[in-house]
């Protein structure tokens, strides 16, 4: 494997690299703040880059697996069907400024989308996307990356990990070939350096995933699930903002003889998720659906893919309208 270096850049690097990339027709996504909402957007002035943002509302997942995407289009003739692939191939994309937890989640999405069958729409975008993460300089009380094997300086899933400096400059740790190509865009402005990264902010560990797995192994049937799910309203907010949740729906939308097949985000908390057309529902109550979400992340996924499907970004805790944080559920299990 190639040896990758660390580079040092001065203030203004972001503007210059984004400019160079946009000139090369690369889609550059950066966090932008609008109406109190920080999210990854393209084609925006870089002055919009918010300072000291905690994280984007939606994770990087939504770049690789959009909330809705066209899988194919079709036209029905009297006795035939013409099929067409979606309009354009995914553009070359560089995401600058996502958090290490979001980038780490891509390894989990890779595991699902690229085992056995390779999900072509996902894999295409993944190949064409470079991830430049910003290491965290501070932690929010809802963050718990250290409890699930991550850290504020986690390099997993990133192509470049950027340690911002207070003077606007940065230290850039190149991690992959794609990352090296990104640094290349900076030209001589990026100088190799031996400097090490600053100390990461402290994120306290809130639970032990091994203990949780052990508890889950024994407690599929437990009143605990009924108790913790009473609050849950069964919306999809926690799943949709989750960097690792990847369940989807496939729907057809048509007008007259033409239409498209789309893939949309879906969520195991919805009552209809598993409901058969016959009316039979394998998970008829919210407690079963809450359990599925926790089990899938902390038991089934580890058993199948060797790691928990959670990166500790804390979005579910911050997003839930009724204070049903995953952390409080897990911490309660941990204490059992």
């Amino acid at each position, binding site marked *: 494997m190639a040896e990758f270096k660390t580079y040092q850049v001065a203030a203004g690097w972001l503007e210059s690299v984004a400019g160079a990339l946009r000139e090369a027709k690369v889609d550059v996504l950066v966090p932008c703040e609008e109406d109190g909402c920080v999210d990854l957007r393209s084609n925006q002035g870089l002055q919009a880059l918010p300072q000291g943002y905690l994280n984007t509302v939606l994770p990087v997942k939504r770049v690789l697996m959009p909330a809705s995407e066209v899988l*194919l289009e079709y036209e029905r003739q009297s006795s035939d069907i013409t099929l067409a692939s979606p309009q354009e191939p995914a553009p070359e994309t560089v995401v600058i400024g996502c958090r290490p937890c979001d980038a780490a989640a891509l390894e989990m999405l890779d595991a699902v*989308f690229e*085992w056995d069958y390779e*999900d*072509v729409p996902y894999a295409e975008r993944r190949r064409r996307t470079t991830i430049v993460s910003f290491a965290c300089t501070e932690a929010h009380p809802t963050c718990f990356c250290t409890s699930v094997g991550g850290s504020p300086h986690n390099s997993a899933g990133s192509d470049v990990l950027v340690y911002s400096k207070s003077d606007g400059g940065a230290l850039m740790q190149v991690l992959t070939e794609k990352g090296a190509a990104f640094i290349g865009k900076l030209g001589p402005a990026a100088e190799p350096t031996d400097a090490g990264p600053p100390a990461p902010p402290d994120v306290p560990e809130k639970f032990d995933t091994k203990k949780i797995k052990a508890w889950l192994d024994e407690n599929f049937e437990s009143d605990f699930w009924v108790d913790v799910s009473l609050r849950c309203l069964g919306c999809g907010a926690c799943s949709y903002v989750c960097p690792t949740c990847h369940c989807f729906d496939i729907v057809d939308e048509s007008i007259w003889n033409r239409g498209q097949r789309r893939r949309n985000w879906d969520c195991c908390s919805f009552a209809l998720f*598993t409901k058969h057309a016959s009316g039979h529902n394998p998970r008829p109550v919210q407690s*079963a659906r809450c359990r599925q979400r926790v089990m*899938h992340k902390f038991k089934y996924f580890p058993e199948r893919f060797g790691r928990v499907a959670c990166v500790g970004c804390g979005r579910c805790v911050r997003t839930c309208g009724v204070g049903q944080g995953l952390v409080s559920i897990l911490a309660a299990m941990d204490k059992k």
Partner: protein
Amino acid sequence: MKTDATAAAKRELIPLDYRPMKMRVIAATQETSDVKTFRLEFCDSGEGERFTYKPGQFGLYSAFGSGEATFCIASSPTRKGYIECSVKRVGKVTAELHARNTGDVVGFRGPYGNWFPLDRMQGSNLLFIGGGIGLAPLRSVIWNCIDCRDQFADISILYGARTVDDLVYKTELQEWKKMQDVQTTCTVDPGGETPEWDDQVGFVPTVLESMNPSPENTIAITCGPPIMIKFVLAGLTKLGFSLDSIYTTLENRMKCGVGKCGRCNVGNKYVCKDGPVFRCSEIAELPQEF
């Protein structure tokens, strides 16, 4: 171990862009008031030649404009040149499929999932127990076994439905009944019989008990509504069958068919990848969410 398996699988990834193959309806049979069987052939003969499957596997059938739905392949791979599927009309996609007739084009992705254990079944007595539309997946393996009759010992079929009208594959049931080397018993639920009905009346598990099949060197395969499976399993256990020698299929909702969309997830299994065919001893270890 798991990671090794993933790594090994990763080397031979099968690209999937969710694009269905086009298939033309070459025959459509109304089985009951709400079940229709379609015989489909590939529009692209090259695709047809490359296509192979095993009994028990399923596919996603497209009614363009309404969506995709999952059905098993109900025909036997020993019958070449076409596939068949039986569709019960219950919702949006199935209603749209029912509107398709000979000459129309539908979409098909597959085959996906695992299959009935033909290797293990060789030389054994086979007991097929079906209920309602649950005969469709059994039909694939039944014809497969009949077409290779000498590979198996005794073959018995028990099939029931709510009423005489609800029996699917009526002409094939007659065909099976006429075969000397296949024992076929049909039954309808009490009240579902007609004056002309000359076979059993009673629920499938009850009839099964009166048949008293021997568990000796026998593999039982059962498909049907969940409530029937529950009582059939109890009955078979009482007769001395081990859960290890009984197979069934799970019918969870699916969207992708290839272990990604998360819908059919039960425990650490994806029904679409690790199933739909399961040994009942495996099912006993899963969370009861199907």
